[in-house]
């Protein structure tokens, strides 16, 4: 089966800076795929090119069968996005935000059903700016689903969330994939990538420096003779935190 995202030799420069410098990779349908890398590695630029928000200087990018460089608005119709540093308009209720974005795609949707799918049905009549951080992230995923996208792009979806809300969001991402949607995310949390993703690509200085499943990457590292000089622990601080505070989602 043809990959749902196919990137070949993608390049984008800002003046002298090569933000994306010859990037190639494929994402298979129904994968959870992550793009990792330090700040300034070119992750967001790459993702925004794939989302049709930024134009590339050269190379090709096919997303859900559409050439992004030729038809950015065609891509926008077929994907769902959650952007970094973005917000919803003020004075709209959560439910109205879903209706509003459905309208932007020229669709009518059952907004209650969509809110229910992200566990926000009881917040439908609340103003979106009164939602907690985790609720807002879930609303933003709900909105990204209104056009029944084939690929869902999530740019650092769990940044700023507490451990309970992060795990809740992972469950949501897994559920979305189970319904047949490919998920493409970026994150700074490597435990998140390890727990959630089928494959990850690690970017640095505009290049992809590693690309495989997390276990395969770890195994390859160990094969190169890497040994971590630490005691093997049966639990970590994360486990302690969740043990003493519980898994239940905290709101407000």
């Amino acid at each position: 089966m043809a990959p749902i995202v196919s990137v070949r030799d993608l390049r984008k420069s800002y003046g002298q800076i090569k933000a994306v410098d010859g990037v190639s990779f494929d994402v298979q349908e129904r994968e959870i795929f992550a793009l990792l890398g330090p700040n300034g590695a070119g992750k967001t630029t790459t993702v925004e090119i794939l989302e049709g928000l930024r134009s590339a200087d050269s190379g090709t990018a096919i997303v859900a069968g559409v050439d992004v460089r030729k038809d950015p608005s065609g891509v926008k119709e077929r994907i769902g996005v959650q952007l970094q540093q973005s917000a919803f308009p003020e004075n709209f209720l959560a439910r109205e935000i879903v209706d509003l974005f459905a309208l932007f795609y020229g669709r009518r949707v059952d907004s209650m059903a969509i809110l229910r799918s992200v566990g926000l049905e009881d917040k439908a009549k609340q103003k979106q700016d009164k939602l907690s951080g985790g609720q807002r992230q879930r609303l933003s995923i709900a909105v990204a689903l209104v056009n029944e996208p084939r690929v869902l792009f999530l740019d650092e979806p769990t940044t700023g969330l507490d451990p309970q809300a992060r795990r809740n969001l992972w469950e949501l991402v897994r559920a979305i994939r189970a319904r047949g949607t490919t998920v493409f995310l970026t994150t700074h949390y490597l435990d998140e990538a390890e727990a959630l993703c089928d494959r990850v690509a690690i970017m640095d200085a505009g290049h992809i420096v590693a690309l495989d499943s997390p276990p395969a990457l770890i195994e390859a590292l160990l094969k190169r003779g890497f040994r971590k000089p630490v005691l093997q622990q049966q639990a970590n601080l994360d486990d302690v935190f969740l043990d003493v505070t519980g898994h239940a989602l905290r709101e407000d």
Partner: protein
Amino acid sequence: MRQILGYTVMLLRAYARDRTALFFGFFFPLLFMVLFGVLNFGGSVRVNLGMVDEAKNDQSASFIATLGKIDTLKITSGERDAQLAKLTAGDLDLVLVIPSNFRIAPAAPGSSVPTLSLFRNSARAEQGAVGGAILNSVIDQLSFAVTQTAPVVSLKSEEVTGRNLKYVDFLTPGIVGMTIMQLGISSVAFAFVADRQRGVIRRIMATSIPRRSYMAAHVLQRLILAVVQVLILLAVAVLAFKVTVVGGLPSLLAVAVLGAVVFLNLGFAVTGLLTTENQAAVATQIVTLPQMFLSGVFFSRDAVPAFLKPVADYLPLTFLNDALRAIATTGASLADVSGQIIGLVVWAILSFILAYRLFRLD
């Protein structure tokens, strides 16, 4: 189209929940009207007219008696020098001198008609303008009566003189004009700068809605708001302040919408130069404040200093206020205010070009 209308409706609904916007859009102009209308300035404009009768004949007496029937005029008679001194002191607004050759009769061929001299106190431009207009119309009426011409026209001037032009009558169109200006400039600048900074526009542009549909909905929403604002302001003026709107509502609304287009364009142009809300606060004041004072919102433009007049005469709010005021207070038709309409259309074209060049969504 469904997208544009649907988005417009949703924007209006969100606007109705925005207390700050409602305050500045509706409550604030009403507050102005109440402050200036009630604390005012005494209800009607009273014109203190000093009379100097140098003819002292039956005809001058009957002319003075005719003027005496007009409510707005408060007439005191006296000698020329004393009356002019009172005018200078500000006790009188106008002094009318009736020359000794005064008579009410058609001029004999070749001879000149008697000339009445009118002295104005330039510091009281409002009263001077009202009084001058009344005197002109009474003289016209007399001329028509004597020469038996143009009876149709005399009917109209009767209405003007018979009406008690109150300050709120004068003020209301000015407040309407000011509100439209504020809506166009401030509602665009603050909303778009904030939405751009918070990433709202970026998020919307990641959907497949075309930019022109997005912009169309925002413009349409504000044009609808402009019409609603005009209707509410006029309703309050008529019901609470007994303002008489002589001209037609459709003409008023047509001019108001044209004015709204001009100020929306200017708003989008200014917004293109801004990145933060603090800048927006300063920039909107720079654009709106001079027009508040130079374009005759609260007081007649006669009070504008002479060196600023060439500027004041061509400001967009001047065209808008003059047209609204002519329609509301004298019943002018759209054709009567074609000069102002042309001015607004020229501004609409210029401001659209500016907005097109300067405005940016990201």
